């Protein structure tokens, strides 16, 4: 087990730390986006922390995850460094993807993080593929595909689960049901009470758990992992959760009211886990406050790092299209203007 093992006191502390880090990271990312410092879109994970961290708590460090557009939490849960994540959100050369991916495409393949993904439902085929490599090479890992409730309606999700099930691949599909597919409530997108019921169609186990409870998520994923490693194929875990922020930052949220948000906050995944650790005598409120301050300064450092980091050179736009660069791109790179663009000059 990894340093996130919920069966150990240290593991529980680390899990709490990662949940708090996710929340602090995303709160600050939201603020900096609102200030205009972070370009593009950001989709925040606040409220859903127990799903990502609970899932990764049941994984080994070399297991794979394929993420969604709401991927910051998965990255931190998998152990990525907030500093390089923030640099990526800022579009800086030191970011995980050298600034080419941004919030929606953060990846660290070496750490088993196969990418956030801007296409709803694209993670499961990726996870099935990683599980295929694992199975083909008789390796010991598993691959997790995260998807949202909205993605359950996607055809490629069905195809990915069907393939994984048919081939008994070591994959786990974690449905983060945050109750809204963008701005449309889940009940208007599916004619099902539990999305995990779809698992029956593939003859694989499907369970629905409280996604605000890190332990419940970790237990379900651990069972799925054991099953995958035993060669019994994939499992679907639906985690019922809630996003406190809009679909994206700037979303005016006409589809829900404050009362609903407040009701979910009563089950807050961080508060409830913290309370449990205090009850067990493993944590005091003071220690938790210290942890929060420490993490706030970690995130402040990440912001400072990202702000100070350099943008990529304009010529980097022409790099990394291929492993073996074709002459076409080399030519465009050669004629790139230093102010950032090959258009208008000599081309081809």
């Amino acid at each position, binding site marked *: 087990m990894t340093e996130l093992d919920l069966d150990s006191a240290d593991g529980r502390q680390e899990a709490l730390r990662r949940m708090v880090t996710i929340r602090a990271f995303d709160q600050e990312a939201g603020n900096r986006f609102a200030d205009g410092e972070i370009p593009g879109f950001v989709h925040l994970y606040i409220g859903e922390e127990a799903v990502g961290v609970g899932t990764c708590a049941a994984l080994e460090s070399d297991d794979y995850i394929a993420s969604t557009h709401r991927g910051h939490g998965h990255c931190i849960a998998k152990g990525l460094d907030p500093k390089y994540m923030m640099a990526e959100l800022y579009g800086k050369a030191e970011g995980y993807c050298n600034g080419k991916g941004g919030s929606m495409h953060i990846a660290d393949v070496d750490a088993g993080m196969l990418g956030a993904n801007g296409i709803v439902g694209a993670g499961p085929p990726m996870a099935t593929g990683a599980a295929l490599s694992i199975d083909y090479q008789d390796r010991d890992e598993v691959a997790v595909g995260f998807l949202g409730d909205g993605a359950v309606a996607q*055809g490629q999700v069905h195809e990915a689960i069907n393939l994984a099930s048919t081939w008994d691949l070591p994959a786990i599909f974690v449905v983060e049901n945050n109750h809204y597919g963008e701005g449309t409530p889940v009940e208007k997108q599916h004619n099902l009470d539990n999305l995990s019921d779809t698992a029956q169609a593939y003859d694989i186990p499907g369970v629905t758990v409280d996604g605000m409870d890190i332990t419940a998520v970790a237990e379900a994923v651990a069972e799925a992992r054991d099953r995958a490693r035993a060669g019994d194929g994939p499992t679907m875990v639906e985690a019922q959760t809630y996003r406190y922020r809009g679909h994206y930052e700037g979303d005016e949220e006409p589809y829900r009211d404050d009362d609903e948000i407040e009701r979910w906050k009563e089950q807050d995944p961080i508060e409830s886990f913290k309370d449990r650790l205090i009850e067990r005598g493993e944590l005091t409120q003071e220690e938790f406050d210290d942890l929060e301050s420490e993490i706030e300064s970690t995130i402040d450092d990440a912001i400072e790092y990202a702000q100070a980091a350099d943008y990529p050179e304009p010529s980097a736009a022409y790099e990394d299209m291929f492993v073996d660069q074709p002459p076409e791109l080399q030519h465009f790179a050669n004629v790139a203007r230093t102010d950032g663009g090959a258009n208008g000059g000599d081309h081809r």
Partner: protein
Amino acid sequence: MTAQAELELETETMTVREAIRQGLREELERDEDVYLMGEDVGLFGGVLEVTGGLYEEFGGERVRDTPISEAGFMGAATGAAATGTRPVVELMFSDFMGVSMEQIMNQMAKMHYMFGGKAELPVTVRTTEGGGMGAASQHSGTVHTWIAHFPGLKAVAPGTAASAKGLTKAAIRSDDPVFVFENKMIYEQSGQVPTDEDFTVPIGKAAVEREGEDVTVVATQRLVGESLGVADSLEGDVSVEVIDPRSLYPLDTDTIVESVEKTGRLVVADESPLSYGTHAEIIARVQEEAFFSLDAPIMRVGTPDTHMPFSPPLEQEVLPGDDDVKAAIQRIS
């Protein structure tokens, strides 16, 4: 390997189908991380029989039958390529690319770039193209322009048995996503094929299939053989040089430009639809680099912006062939 070195290798006569199969077999033998996957590629031997016998030889783990699930297996192949294996996908007909386009255009093509070069995607996609067998509009398309146009993907399209083998092997050995477009009407076409296990055709290198002085014909796939026939029939009247680009992206512009600088005349023959396509790209590059060498307008031969109709007389009407190549040469020479 240079074209000269290709000529010096020992060869055997075989069909395009056999040449591709030999290339697949050699790569399966050479690298355990290579495996084939697709609809009916295993027990059935491939719907156009290209993978016949490989299932018996290598087993179902390495020659994997998939569900009829192009989006699922194209996405899985991308994920598998990113995590340590080298899948070779057969997409039964290139028309089915539409079903799996999301995985091709938003995942396979973009991952290496979006991740700052940190994911390598050694995935090969073999697929069939072309009209001529009465397969009608949804099984006869020539869509390689889409892939050649889309940044992040490489596209090759063999016109001879030798290049069919060599490009297949080069695609599998490449660490980038490569699409191999096989014209289904040339599977039975025979040619001399190098038997050396290390014979490959470098991606991005054209072949001058026939030397000539008066007109350059850049032809792809089935139209390579047909253009060579036309060139022979015009011998003594017009001296025709025939170039098979073999690779559409990257494209060996230098070989084509060098030829046009010599001949001053160009015909581009490719079965894809004429508008906004492969022909236009080749012509654009030639005019950029050899404009002042041109003695006549550039001609193009292709499908006249229709789908492939079912009825044989209609199919023959729109399918570009040797008569169209001949007419184009004669208009400018």
